[in-house]
């Protein structure tokens, strides 16, 4: 993210870039586990979307399509609340830590 100087910044501590936190990739906090989406079991109830604190459930054309690992922190709420008998989201071990994104 380019740092603005006093020449570009509006006066009065105003942020005119609504929603620009999306450049902060919270997925870099994830450690040890991540959710995996199993489409064939999914009944499109949207509970995972509802209960994800980090807005990391991908929705396309009115359907849940997967996980956005750029923001997923691995809290496990989606998998826990997924109601299907054969889980449509499971938590799996994740070896790699994505530390680079933090510096962006």
């Amino acid at each position, binding site marked *: 993210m380019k740092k603005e100087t006093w020449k570009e910044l509006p006066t009065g501590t105003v942020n005119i870039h609504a*929603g*620009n*936190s*999306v450049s902060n990739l919270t997925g870099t906090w994830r450690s040890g586990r991540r959710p995996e989406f199993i489409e064939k079991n999914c009944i499109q109830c949207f509970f995972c979307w*509802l209960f994800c604190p980090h807005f990391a459930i991908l929705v396309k054309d009115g359907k849940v399509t997967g996980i956005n690992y750029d923001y997923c922190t691995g*809290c496990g709420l989606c998998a826990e609340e997924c109601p299907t008998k054969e889980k449509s989201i499971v*938590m799996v071990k994740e070896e790699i830590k994505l530390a680079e994104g933090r510096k962006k």
Partner: protein
Amino acid sequence: MAVKLKDLAQMEDKLVAGHGMCLGCGIPLIFKMILRATEDPIVVANATGCLEVCTTIFPRTAWNCMWVHSAFENAAATAAGVEAMFKALKNKGKIPADKKIKFLAVGGDGGTYDIGIQSLSGAMERGHDIVYVCYDNNVYANTGGQRSSATPLGASATTSPAGSKSPGKVQKKKDLTKILVAHNIPYVAQASPHRWQDLYNKAKKAFEVEGPAFLNVLCLCPTEWKYDESQGIKLAQLAADTCAWPLYEVENGKYKINYKPKEKKPVLEWLKPQGRFRHLFKEENAWMLEAIQKEVDRDWEDLNKLAEISGA
């Protein structure tokens, strides 16, 4: 009025990804629903606390709508001022008189039950057309877990720590919702994120009524409550099932309970998964467990009586 999650999911987010709230935090769950409960533009006045600090670390903001910072003590006054300003602009013909804008003040329990209560009371009494939402995580979370007047009886917090001489907080939680009812405003309600439809409906009503409305929403805080963050929604369900956090609304003075558990569970089921109550399960604190159950029972009974009187 039944709304579908699928449709809500396709609305634009007014609070977006990249915020810095903890793993499993309940705050985004609450505002994901509330910010969708009106189609009109919203101006948010935010008292400092986790929500504000984690969403507005300069030069970033997670707010995708009009938003204004407030000090810890005056979110309600800020929102009231903004509402009055828009009224004046309409009167002067600077914006169309029929332009619909919603004003939302938000604060934590510290910012609402404690330091913000006078500005909140003032704004409610003056009748500003604003919605105030308190996300009640029972503690001053942002500054490391000090007790507030919303911290429940028996909870350990950094300024009411449990130890050999202390069973945790010895004072009962303040009943702020009832204090707001006593302001005789058109709409007051308690909600919880696990019952999303109820939360959505309440936010919708709050936005739609003319005059002030107040929502008190239980807010999960895995960091300060000390539980496995994946279990948050089940925990919120337990708060409702034990009647530790009843879901009800008061419309024009009339009480209505929105959720009655088929079988009221013992309060220890809500306490047990949380580290902040761990000490209560030692033998010497058994009396406190009993006291908590007694208080919950009495409050639930009182609430039922109030609903009965209201004819609901």
